[in-house]
């Protein structure tokens, strides 16, 4: 009997120890390699700054990250614009606390294969009609939501009717590969990924180029659950925010990759929510 009681106590202790580990995740949108190594360093940094155990959980999809956030498996997450809105809708009092400096004015590129004859312009050419088109991942802000919004705004019809065929490549790098090969004629891609792949020599500029860039919009941000103060004490949320904003080690920032983090609030993402609602991605 005594043994059993000890066992139960042990379970309880391990449970509470488990609950006291502050856990975060990050949407893999631009670079999915070496996630553990890169974000393990972020976990160490936060652990030092906050004085508690911090763990990182790798995820593969937007939906998995949102689910983990809602189910309190993670308390902090580096979300895209849309996934952040979707996640905060589901967790009362959750808050966007910081965004990348670059995320205040993020943008998407429309890219086209040269055989289409499409040339760069200030607006999307009406010759887009009837082409084949690929988005990135279905839940991506820069690879799906904002491109779809601007397409609808300009042509006043759904992509499925505007284009001959609409695919979802699932990833920005794959979007580039598919348009570059001409498999899809046109595509929409996160500008940062395009610039990175271009610099790395992975893009054959004789067959694919940027034909339009969208106006800027807010994208990635750190969102935190509303109940963290109740678990880790009053003012914990503010301390997490401070730790993120004061991150200045270039090696850590390169994981995102961002030059620095700046303040953010839920209101910054109201335009994203509005666009998502108008497209029917959220109710």
């Amino acid at each position, binding site marked *: 009997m005594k043994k059993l009681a000890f066992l139960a106590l042990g379970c309880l202790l391990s449970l509470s120890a488990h609950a006291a580990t502050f856990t975060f995740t990050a949407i893999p949108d631009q670079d999915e*390699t070496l996630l553990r190594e890169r974000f393990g360093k972020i976990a160490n940094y936060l652990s030092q700054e906050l004085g508690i155990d911090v763990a990182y959980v790798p995820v593969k999809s937007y939906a998995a990250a949102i689910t983990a956030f809602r189910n309190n498996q993670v308390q902090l997450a580096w979300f895209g614009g849309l996934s952040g809105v979707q996640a905060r809708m589901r967790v009362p009092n959750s808050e966007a606390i910081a965004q990348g400096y670059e995320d205040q004015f993020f943008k998407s590129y429309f890219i086209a294969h040269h055989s289409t004859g499409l040339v760069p312009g200030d607006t999307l050419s009406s010759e887009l009609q009837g082409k084949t088109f690929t988005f990135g991942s279905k839940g991506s802000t820069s690879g799906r939501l904002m491109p779809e919004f601007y397409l609808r705004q300009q042509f006043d019809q759904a992509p499925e009717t505007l284009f001959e065929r*609409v695919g979802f490549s699932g990833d920005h790098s*794959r979007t580039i590969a598919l348009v570059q090969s001409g498999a899809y004629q046109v595509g929409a891609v996160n500008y940062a990924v395009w610039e990175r792949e271009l610099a790395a020599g992975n893009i054959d500029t004789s067959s694919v180029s940027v034909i339009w860039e969208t106006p800027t919009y807010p994208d990635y941000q750190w969102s935190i659950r509303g109940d963290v103060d109740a678990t880790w004490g009053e003012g914990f949320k503010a301390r997490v925010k401070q730790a993120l904003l004061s991150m200045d080690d270039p090696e850590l920032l390169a994981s995102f990759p961002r030059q620095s983090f700046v303040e953010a609030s839920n209101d910054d993402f109201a335009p994203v929510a509005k666009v998502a609602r108008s497209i029917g991605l959220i109710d």
Partner: protein
Amino acid sequence: MTAPARFDTTAGRYRRLSLGLALTALLALTLADIDWVNSSPWFELGRIGWGMLTPDFFGVESLASAVANTLAFALLGVAVANVTGFIFALLFRWRLVQLFCALIRAVHELFWALLFLQLFGLGTLTGLLAIAIPYTGIFARVYAEILEEADQRPAELVPVGSGWLSTFAYARIPPAFAHLKNYALYRLECGIRSSAVLGFIGLPTLGFHLETSFSQGLYSQAAALLYLFFALIASIRLWVRPWLIPLYLAMALYWLPFDGYWSVATLQQFLGYDIVPAPLRDAGVQALAEPRLWWPWLQNLLLQQALPGIVNTLVLSIIAMVACGILTLLLFPLVSTLFMPRQGRSTGHLLLVVLRSIPELILAFIILLVTGPSMLPAIIALALHNGAIIAHLIGRYSDALLLRDDASRGINRYLFEVLPRIYPQFLAFLLYRWEVIMRETAILGILGIHTLGFFIDSAFEELRFDRALLLILMTALVNMALDQLARALRRRLQLDANPQQARY
């Protein structure tokens, strides 16, 4: 004497079925969305080719643990399904059990995983259940058939008054044991493939890294992962020994972390809110009485997604199945002792292992680069993958055929000696595979083809679990109907003459 009437011979029935399938596929082709664009894939194909030549085994982090996870999920999932499936097999004479098993195996592992992800997060439990549940349905059906068709004479000869358990243990199991064991081993290979593919949605198996490196264009890393995967599958008969299984299972239990996440609140949230159709969430159950509340929602889902999804899925799967059949007939001689010397067979085996182990998603992406988006890459990818599986099985089956010493050689041997003998098996395999091909059309959203799976995936991505569940149920119903049809066809043709072979 009258001229012999045109008898309804078995061969005649095979011919009619083959012709019927081919004509249906041709009809489907006229409805299919097939296209070939003039693309310039060489830049990307060059990078992929270079990656395959320069595999990088050290660029992927925690590679060893990914291999261990892949094996551990597969071993435990298949072991659990083996036991539960066996229990259901004993109860299989009840229609309800049959339907239940058909339902659970009709849902793709990935969709089971996406559902459990909502409840248990990305933990061990999610991976195990995603394999164990559909495999339970498969094991139940196959084990029930094996037991039914095993030699019944020993059981009839036990003395009057012998207990049920003794009869079962001493007279029913022994005659069926070899087949049960063979089948369990084959399922383990399938389990390793399933386990790897679960990585695509985030479980820490080989598929996690494979998807990452492939989608990011890191082809040297992708090649390394693929080669490892091929090696695991190809060597399976070397390292799986019955007496080692308990040891492997113990290691798997020890290795996998069972600190999964679980809470009643999450369960309540999921069952009581997430999967309740959106229009009924606030209004409660009594709203069911008012169709105007939910009919538009349902109608929209049916007309916009379910119906076109079902049509596209059927069209695609029937073409893929017939293409798969043609491919099988071309490929199986490569691994058959009747046609190939030893060295040629090794090459053949290697080719088949490669074709059946590359996840369809990756095959489809490579073909998509060349042909452009349409149903074409899906058809080719599904036909190659499944064709390689059936060719492997038919090849093994043909090895057991005994030909006369003076049997003809070459093309005559193929057409007049071997083909007639393997044809019933071949058709049985093919019809069984139809169900599998249907399930697999789910994961090809990259091609912009709106199959049922495409819409289910979208529903999960938009966190609309009510839609996802309804669409999954519809997929399951279509699968069950198809399964019934295929079985009716098989029965008509008496393809089950040697059933232990027919179900792989």
